[in-house]
């Protein structure tokens, strides 16, 4: 079938062509500026939709991560509390400026001899000066103050 045959095949009457045009032609033309505005709005809307959702929550994620990291660092690297100065002085029974086993020896001897007991020697704070205070002083003497190797 050649092109000439096609032309002859679809030749119609003038009236029929007009009828077809009137049937399928747009009733009202869309103005170009309206068309551009619609297309622009559609494109903007689609661009907004295509934005990854996690980007919307990025500030919240960053804040949560910062809080978690800070918490873990605090729990892992918080240095142990140093013995307070007043407590250290309280354990220095013989007042030589250091807490060692000699303080425990002196306190034990004082308790054993039932001499007048200084209330300040109540190193564990239970209201009584007894062997438990000696143990507290001795344990302070052997505590690894500089951290273990």
């Amino acid at each position, binding site marked *: 079938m050649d092109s000439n045959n096609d032309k002859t095949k679809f030749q119609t009457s003038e009236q029929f062509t007009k009828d077809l045009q009137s049937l399928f032609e747009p009733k009202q033309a869309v103005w170009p500026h309206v068309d551009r505005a619609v297309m622009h709005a559609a494109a903007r809307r689609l661009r907004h939709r295509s934005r990854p*959702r*996690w980007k919307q*929550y990025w500030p*919240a*994620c960053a804040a*949560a*991560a910062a809080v*978690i*990291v800070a918490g*873990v660092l605090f729990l*892992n690297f918080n240095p142990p509390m140093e013995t307070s100065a007043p407590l250290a002085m309280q354990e220095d029974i*013989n007042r030589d400026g250091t807490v*060692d*086993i*000699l303080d*425990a*020896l*002196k306190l*034990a*001897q004082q308790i*054993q001899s039932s001499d007048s007991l200084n209330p300040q020697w109540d190193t564990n704070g239970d209201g009584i000066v007894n062997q438990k205070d000696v*143990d507290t002083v*001795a*344990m302070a*003497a*052997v*505590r*690894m103050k500089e951290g*273990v*190797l």
Partner: protein
Amino acid sequence: MKKTALIMVCLLSMVSVPTARTESQKPSEPIRFVPLHIYIDSGQAPLAAYQFELKTLAGHVEIVGVEGGEHPAFTHAPYYDPAALMNNRIIIASYSTDAQLPTGLTRIATLHLQITGNIEPDYELELTVAADPGGRRIQAKITYQKGDVQ
């Protein structure tokens, strides 16, 4: 929300993995238990109190136990920081208010050590203080002797 949760889990695992890391022990390394006897020679002076520090300078050593000495005045377990048991440094101290106190060379304590590996450990002893019943510091010498492997 799923992505947010996933990010949180990733961050948590990144942070927690290094802190949870522990030193793994090679299974092939031999382990032996050795007692280390500590002696103090206080000469003519009666020994009423002592305090010393032990460090291990070589080898992988853990202190697994501490027991008292040979003289009746020091048979009780000395004071030490339990936190130091898993490490290679420890301070040990004891006192006695008994009337009979040791003089001369006496074993004051025995430490039980767990040694991992074939390296023979070396030790450093420092006598912090030794005192007579009056609480006066006395001249004394501290030494150690390795016991038999158990």
